[in-house]
Structures are given as C-alpha cells and as structure tokens.
C-alpha cells in the first residue's frame, strides 16, 4: 500500500542524507520526497511517499525513528489527512490548442501562469491522482515539461505534528 510519512527532523547538515540513505541502504522504496524548513527554524519537515506491505512500513517508521536527527514522525495515511502536490506543466499552445489547454485547465481548476506565442505554463495543485489525471488529459495536446514538488501532507482535524 502507498503511505505518506511526514517527518520532523533537525535542521542540521547531513540530516537529509541520513534519511535518504536509509531508504537505499535498507532497500525501501521512495516514490516522492519533499523537504523544507518549518516555522521553527531548527526543524525541517520532510514528507516521503513510499509503497510497502505492513511489515515494510513498520520497519520504515521504526528505522526512521531510530535516526538521531529524526525528532518525530507520523504516517499520515493511518488517519484522515490532506494530501497536496504542486505541479508546473509546459504544454504546446498553438492555434486551437490554446483554447483546448485553457478549457482543460479550467476543468481541473489549474491556472495558466506563463504565456508565450507557442507555450502555456500551467500550475495545478491537488493530490497525486488529480495531477496524474491532468497529465493524461494534456498528453494528446503535447506536454513539453513537467515539474512536480512531490507530495506534502497534513492530518485533518486537531491532530498536530510538532515538538
């Protein structure tokens, strides 16, 4: 099953490489990974999506917790959560394609954020499934370039991941 694990870790040099290294050392799989500082400058938040059966996911969370730089983590997929990813896509936009791209973008509530005579750059956010669907819809028109941030997430309701 696919899991989204959010990790609070020390904002220290080398911390990221320990987390990433762990995945390759132990033959765990990484689908996407995203990392950025938090409101507390001593902490970064890293979100990783991975796939594995219960035994593998249990090992992943235990091994991550064992890293000294990891302060706390949560497997978001264990509860209700919000999952978002941002994607920027450059698509061909010539003649009739321009309307077509615009219409599809509207349907997906995506925005066109940059325009040239032949190219539209579209920005879209959502869960990974929505982004995939958008790419599929755009494919016949002609996708030139894709930049995805990888999944970020947060649990729903009052539950908080903090120190």
């Amino acid at each position, binding site marked *: 099953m696919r899991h989204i694990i959010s990790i609070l*870790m*020390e904002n220290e040099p*080398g911390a990221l*490489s320990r987390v990433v290294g762990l995945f390759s050392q132990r033959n765990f799989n990484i689908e996407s990974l995203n990392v950025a500082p938090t409101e507390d400058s001593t902490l970064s938040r890293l979100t990783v999506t991975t796939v594995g059966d219960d035994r593998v996911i*249990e090992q992943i969370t235990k091994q991550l917790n064992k890293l*000294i730089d990891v302060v706390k983590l949560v497997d978001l997929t264990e509860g209700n959560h919000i999952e978002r990813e941002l994607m920027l896509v450059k698509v061909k936009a010539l003649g009739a394609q321009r309307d077509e791209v615009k219409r599809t973008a509207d349907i997906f509530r995506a925005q066109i954020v940059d325009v040239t005579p032949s190219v539209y750059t579209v920005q879209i956010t959502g869960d990974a499934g929505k982004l995939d669907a958008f790419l599929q819809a755009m494919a016949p028109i002609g996708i030139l370039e894709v930049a995805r941030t990888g999944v970020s997430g947060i649990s729903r309701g009052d539950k908080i991941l903090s120190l």
Partner: protein
Amino acid sequence: MELLSGADMIARFLKDEGVEYIYGYPGGAALHIYDALFRQDDVKHILVRHEQAATHAADGYARASGKPGTVLVTSGPGATNAVTGIATAYMDSIPMVVLCGQVASHLIGEDAFQETDIIGVTRPIVKHSFSIRHPSEIPTVLKKAYYLAASGRPGPVVVDIPKDMTAPTERYEYVYPKKVKLRSYNPVTRGHTGQIKKAVDMMLKARRPVFYTGGGVVTGQACEGLTDLVQRLGYPITTTLMGIGAYPQNDRQSLGWLGMHGSFESNMAMHHADLIIAIGARFDDRVTNNTSKFCPTAKIIHVDIDPSSISKTVRADVPIVGPAGSVIDEMISLVQGREPANPEALGEWWDKIEGWREDRRGKLYEPAEPGEPLKPQQVIETICRMTRGEAFVTTDVGQHQMFAAQYYKFDKPNRFITSGGLGTMGFGFPAAMGIKLSYPDDDVVCITGEGSFQMMMQELSTCKQFGVGVKIVNLNNGSLGMVRQWQDLNYKSRHAHSYMESLPDFQKLIEAYGFTALKVERPEDLEPALERAFANKDELVFLDIYVDPREHVYPMQVPLGSMRDMLLSKTERT
C-alpha cells in the same frame, strides 16, 4: 574559566570522561590533537600499525569492559582504514567513539590532500556522526558522542574534526559538560508493564519453553538477572554467539549457543518449542535459518531495546521494547511466588532435551588417532581446561572461531570476544591487544587461523612497543578452512583459492619481533607448549599449532532449511 585550544579541549575532555586508552595513528589533519596528547599524561595513546587495528583494539576493550572504546585517526586514508572496524562495531552494537582528523574547513569539498567525506562514507555503519563546526562546540559534541555511543542500543559514533578546529592559536572556554540532552533521542528505560505481565503469564503456562538471549543481555548488564530468572523457572536457555556467557554454560539448563553452527540440542529445542523468550537478540539469518520454517509451533516473546529489531525478520507475538535489565527484573518480581502451570509437560520437555543431548554425547568430533594431526576441537578443549575457562578469548573468523565458541565453555559474560555480525577476519589479534592493556592480570588468548592472522599481524610491532602479553593460538590448517568447508559441501571440493600457499615460517616471523613462538605438530607437544605459553602473564607467546586440515565444523544448518535441519558430520544429517 579556562581557555583551551580545540586540540587541548579534546585531550582534556578525554581525561574528564575517564578515557584511559585511545588507539590511533597520526597524520597531518590530526597533528594538533597529537601535540595536545603529547603535552599531557592522563590519557595514554597506543600507536597501532594500521588504523583498522585501532578500531578493533578499542572494540575489544569495549566488549570486555562495557565502556566505549576510543579511536583517533587522521583524515583520508587514516579514516578509510578505520571503516572495517567501525562496521564491525556497528553490526555487534559496540560502543565506540572514532575521532577523525579532517582537512581544514575552507578546503572541504575541494578534493584537498587527504580529504575524504568520512561522514558520508560511514553513514550507514554508525549510530550517529558529528562534524565539528566551531572549536567551542567540541566539549558538548564529544559528550554527545560518548552518550550516544554507550546508551540505548550502543554503537559507533564518528566525530569529524577539521584541522582548523584544533588550531593552537584559537582558544575558547572549556567546561566539561556533565550531561547532555538530545531532544530527538530518548532511549526507553523500561518496558510496558502490561506486555511484561502478558509475557510472564505465557511463560508460566508454557509447556516447551526456551530462552533465546543475545548480546543485548550482555550490553544491558543483565546477566545476573537473567540467570536468576532462568533458574527460578527451570527452563532451558540457549544464547547467540554474542550472548555467550550471559548464563553459565556449564550449568545443566544451558544448551549452549544456537544457529548455523550451534549445538544440536539448542537448534532442536528451538524448533520444537511452544514458547520462545527472546531477550536482546535479533533473529538474524545465521540463527533462524529459513524464517518461513522457523520454529513452526512457537509463540514468540521478544524483548529488545531497539524497536526496529522487533518483528524485523520474525514476527513477535508479544513485543516488549525495553532494556533487558529492567524488563528481566520486572519479570522476576512477577514470577516470584508462582510456579509454572505444567510441571508434567515441562518434565517431558526436559526428557526430550536430555535425549537430544545424549544423542550427540561423545560424537561431536572424532579424536585424532595416533599419528594423525591434532584436531582443532581438542586444542580448544585443552586451552579451556588449562585456563580454567576464565580467559578472555578473542577470535578471528573461520572454522577456528566456531571451534572456539563450541569447545571453550564460558561461565561469564564479556569473555568471548568475536566479530559476530560482520565476521571480520583480522579482528581477533588487535581486539586481544585492546583487552590485555586494560586487563593486564588476566589471560587474554587470541584464537586465530593462519589466514586471519595475516590480515592484522603487523600489530606484533605494537605489542612489542607497549609490552602487550597476549597469547596467540594459530590453528594452522594451511587453508582458509571455512571457505574450504563450503567448497567441500557445495562445490564438489573445488578449492578455489582457499589454500594458503607460501605461508611464512611463523616461528621466525614472531621471533623477528623478539617474541617466543612454539610450533606444535604432535598431540603430545600441545600441553607443554600451552604451559609454556601461559607461564608468564606479561609475555606474548605465539603457538603455531598444526591441526587437521580436513576437519569440518558441525553441526551445520542446511541452507534454506529449518533450525533442526542440520548436517551432524560428514556422513550424518538430521
């Protein structure tokens, strides 16, 4: 307030931390530190002849004493030479702090002379690592390093020290930090009481129980408690290679050790058990054999300080995360005043076990016929007898290691010192050196093979310089015996590079360093040679003992089988 340079802080910190010996080798990036060591007398530095030996010596000391060993090496090749020893310590959860010199901060990343990203190189084989970014952080970082190395599940910690951090001209305030806190690191101090209760209830109801305990009981200094618990219940106990001596092996309840070359009765008891009480052991593949066939009828209680060890390879029915010591103590207080519920079943269980024991009695190996070469097993038995089972025994890796583990009987923990997890040839001799320096009044014997010994034999020079009186027993079978055994069994005796051509004349080699070496070729020469070797505690003596090269180590688990699937000799299997 005291102002010290980074280098002086290191020397001072080591003293304040109570470090007696450090093992190391100098080089450019570490020279400020060496100068600081020169200007003090509290911490003794042992100059090894190869950095790998420094790590093994520190490791040997740590295994014998339970305290972290300390290593100091220079950047680049000095640090990379230490890697095998760091990995060895990591695999066996041994506390160790490795201080590595590094090129000056402004040169990092420029492929400077002797620059290696040692933090990167060692990342998968350390418990944690630090890079010093300002001289003033040296005392706290070192304190954290020692704290991390020794607490929780112990392990090696690397501290990378750029040369400018130790410059004599830069001085900062030094205060020895008595304590440090790491917000992200809080090793458990006790197990979950509900789980422990549940475990004890299962233990009392068991019909065919076995204790299976490992290095965690030794590191957790829980051997007395374990012995008490096991004796109160009257249950059989088997240990891992790392757990040898946690329970007296000469006691009736001890089945010896288990796994690939473990005792017949241990492996049989595990396979037929209805309850396995695992404490501080990690169900590794050299123990379990094929996990899908592992202990088919057993429920499993698993106590470990490291949650990630639990249910990693074999699913635990009752997981208990906690240190062996406090969990065992809690178990004892819960067992107190209660009796096992099934005395009859337990009686039958013991009958079965005694039957297995009896099956193999006198059949473990065939003693040498007159005129035949010595059997390695016989050599170990004799050494055990002559040292009253009380020596520190280190080993290298191979057949001699397994024979040492099988035929030397240990009643105390921290005495059998071997590279279990990584299986590092070259470990035994430097480890013995590290132990002997801290335990000068004890017998320290390194049981080695001619293959392994040649991987670290340069340390003879270190022993000469520091007067280290270890005894080296070379079970010379003229081959990489364990490799040869596998080739006999799996490759129709095609001995691809498992022979040892051009062995040195060990006697001459040893004598070149000014030590005594005795060659033993006939059975009747063995005892006199051992007597000579152990006559003087301070003297290094090397025994080159020619043993039967055709000998195999048995029992041997059959690959992909269950624990009870074993070869028992060249002609028998279960």
